[in-house]
């Protein structure tokens, strides 16, 4: 057993796929950040709000106001360096830290694909993506034709985990037997040419899309790994992601997944891509001395790197299952919902208002949320209990500091999930100001008055 494992770990593979991945990742990240800037979202999401929702354990992460632009500039520069393979290790670490820091500023903007970029860039820190076709090669006068096979396979594994878990998440009774939430989302796209007025409105189509989405997610990693089905799988990947891009406002995610899927292809394709890039760069190439080509890249500190990678994947495989520790309906309480590849899985809306009560006199008033939260923040807060709790504490502190005495904070909250009639969400009699966030079950979330079976 140990023998075959060490044989595998010592296997080499062509370094071209890793180089192509590095270049495309760096360029896409660059573009993605510039696009984010261009839309004015830095201002809108990170600078304008007076209050930010924090991740558990990361309450110390602050927005730097206008200086947030500096973090973005740093991140873009790092992404560019990653693409060029210039001072790669420092660049990818900088990218990982700056990108993740940005995400940690406000939980409101959590997106599964931002989480994906964070962990992907973390993994890339430990991979020799600069071994081939990078400026580091030119500077160090060394280039490597081969890299350990497991470095390329680890990228394939990560992408497979994302798809497979997304597929598992879709195995639930709402998705498969009620065609929810597609049954709400698809008919609303009535203005799509050709299919908007007829296909998108049909119930059988909603079910077809739900089932094929689930089957696609579960099977696509295997179809990509098998050489015989690879091209067909890639066609599916392109079709699926472009289709979802047309339907939903999911930004760069489809393109990132399409380009990332190239890692499954053999070195031949990647060498062609690199030849193409070389020919495009020819007019710009200075007469640098060609780096000396060494056959294979070797880690100098493999005994540290491998355990880290192992822990990383162990975490990725186990973490999405933490919801099992909580009794109540996952889609309702969302305890363990984030960071587990539950992508575009539920339609959930809420309406949550807060009452500040003076415990001694009984006097009370309702808070106008728009005084403290942006519409986006209020929307996200209204159906996520950890947000509600954090905001309740903020309100309690705020009004106490204004001089109100014996402050109690009660939430009146109604949530509709996947087309069901809205139900009361939070116990209106629980003083949230006295409750603290932890990994324990939140008993002040009212039970879900229905049942959803599955993952």
């Amino acid at each position, binding site marked *: 057993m140990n023998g075959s494992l060490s044989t595998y770990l010592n296997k080499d593979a062509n370094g071209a796929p890793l180089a192509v991945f590095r270049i495309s990742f760096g360029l896409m990240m660059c573009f993605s950040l510039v696009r984010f800037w261009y*839309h004015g979202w830095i201002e*809108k*999401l990170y600078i304008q709000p007076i209050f930010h929702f924090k991740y558990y354990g990361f309450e110390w992460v602050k927005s730097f106001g206008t200086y947030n632009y500096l973090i973005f500039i740093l991140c873009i520069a790092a992404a560019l360096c990653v693409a060029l393979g210039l001072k790669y290790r420092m660049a990818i670490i900088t990218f990982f830290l700056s990108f993740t820091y940005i995400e940690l500023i406000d939980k409101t*903007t959590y*997106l*599964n*694909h*931002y989480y994906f970029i964070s962990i992907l860039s973390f993994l890339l820190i430990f991979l020799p993506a600069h071994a081939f076709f990078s400026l580091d090669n030119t500077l160090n006068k060394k280039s490597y034709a081969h890299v350990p096979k497991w470095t390329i396979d680890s990228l394939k594994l990560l992408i497979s985990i994302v798809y497979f878990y997304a597929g598992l998440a879709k195995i639930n009774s709402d998705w498969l037997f009620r065609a929810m939430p597609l*049954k*709400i*989302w698809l*008919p*609303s*796209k*009535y*203005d799509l040419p050709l*299919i908007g*007025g*007829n*296909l998108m*409105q*049909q*119930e059988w*189509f909603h079910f*077809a*899309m739900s089932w*094929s989405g689930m*089957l696609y997610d*579960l*099977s696509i990693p295997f*179809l990509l790994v*098998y050489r015989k089905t690879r091209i*067909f*799988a890639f066609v*599916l990947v392109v*079709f699926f992601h472009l289709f979802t891009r047309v339907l*939903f*406002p*999911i930004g*760069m*995610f489809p393109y990132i997944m399409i380009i990332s899927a190239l890692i499954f292809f053999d070195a031949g394709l990647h060498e062609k891509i690199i030849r193409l890039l070389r020919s495009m760069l020819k007019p710009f190439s200075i007469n640098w001395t060609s780096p000396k080509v060494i056959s294979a890249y070797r880690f100098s500190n493999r005994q540290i790197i491998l355990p880290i990678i192992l822990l990383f994947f162990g975490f990725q495989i186990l973490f999405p299952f933490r919801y099992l520790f909580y009794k109540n309906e996952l889609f309702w309480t969302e305890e363990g919902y984030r960071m587990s590849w539950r992508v*575009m899985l539920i*339609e959930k809306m*809420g*309406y949550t208002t807060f009452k500040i009560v003076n415990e001694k006199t009984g006097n*009370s*008033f*309702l*808070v*106008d949320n728009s005084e403290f939260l942006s*519409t*986006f923040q209020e*929307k996200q807060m209204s159906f996520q209990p950890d947000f509600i709790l954090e905001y309740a504490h903020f309100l309690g502190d705020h009004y106490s500091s204004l001089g109100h005495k014996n402050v109690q904070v009660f939430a009146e909250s*109604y*949530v*509709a999930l996947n*087309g*069901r*009639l*809205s139900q009361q969400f939070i116990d209106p009699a629980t003083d949230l100001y006295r409750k603290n966030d932890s990994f324990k079950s939140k008993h002040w979330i009212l039970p879900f008055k229905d049942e959803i079976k599955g993952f």
Partner: protein
Amino acid sequence: MFRKSIIGLLFVSIMISCNSSVENPTDGVKDNFNRQEMLSNWADNIIIPAYEDLNADLNDLVIKKNEFLQTPDPSHLEAIRNSWMNAYETWQYVEMFSIGKAEDINYAFQMNIYPTNIQDIQNNISTENYDLTHVNNNDAVGFPAVDYMLYGLEAGEEALLDAYTSSNLSMQNKAYLSDLIDQMQSLTEMVLNDWKLGYGDAFVNSTSNTATSSTNKLTNDFIYYFEKGLRANKFGIPAGIFSTTPFYDKVEAFYHQEASKALSLKALQAVQDFFNGKAYGVEGTSDSFKTYLLYLQNGTEDVNLSSLINDQLNKAKSSIESLNNNYSAQIKTDNTKMTQAYDELQKAVVLLKVDMIQAMNISVDFVDADGD
């Protein structure tokens, strides 16, 4: 493994091939809801007729105002007061349409901001130097300002008439009253003409599902009005829901004193009529939220949201009907009844803002970041 990919391929090819074959409506498939008809119904049967009526009422108010200023006596005072009330009731049908020209010029802010600011009004009158369109004057114009000028300027009818006859500010008072009413009429005519001469068509043709399309904007307006204009302004704020004490002086038509209930019942009626697609002023209903929701929920096991909403609106109506005509008095003597009316309206807000919005899959206001 291969079986899965074949099933996948099958679904994909079904999707692609069925593109061409769903033209045939007779195989029991769901017909698409005609959103343009809903928009036409809104524009042609509800919005424009309501504005026409309001414009006519304000024209009448101008006439009555001129007659009153000519002869400021009790009978002319009564005439202008009735005309004002009539226009105010019609206004309730129009306040929710903050779209098009009305949105551009902040029409509602220039017509119905209350409580009105007496200091600002007095200041304007005495300095004779004011720009009614300026945002600082929003709380010194419109129906609430006229309310003050016709009922609150002085205590008692005799003293009030003196303000327009013998007082040393009588010329200025007259001028201000005149300007207020003229402005209201001219703004309304501007909005009405915009609807009739171009915006109406643009409105009906904006059928896509984007944040700036007519359906999305009007739905957001409707809900915003229900939450703010109806629930908060008429009930929540005066009843002290959002503050530590109630404010009996922040009710609508505070100076008239007996009009608050009539106005809020009109507003609720306007909301319910719009929801049900009932034509303004005449018999007949057509497409609106009610029928749209029925279409969206057709064939699902879900409860009939349209009837739930109507039921709740009816409950709110009975709760309001049990109130004193004079909301200030109601607040002072038994505020719990006001808060109960508020609660009934609040339940309707949840049904509209959560359930209806979710069913229609409309984004509540502009959240233009990526979703995941």
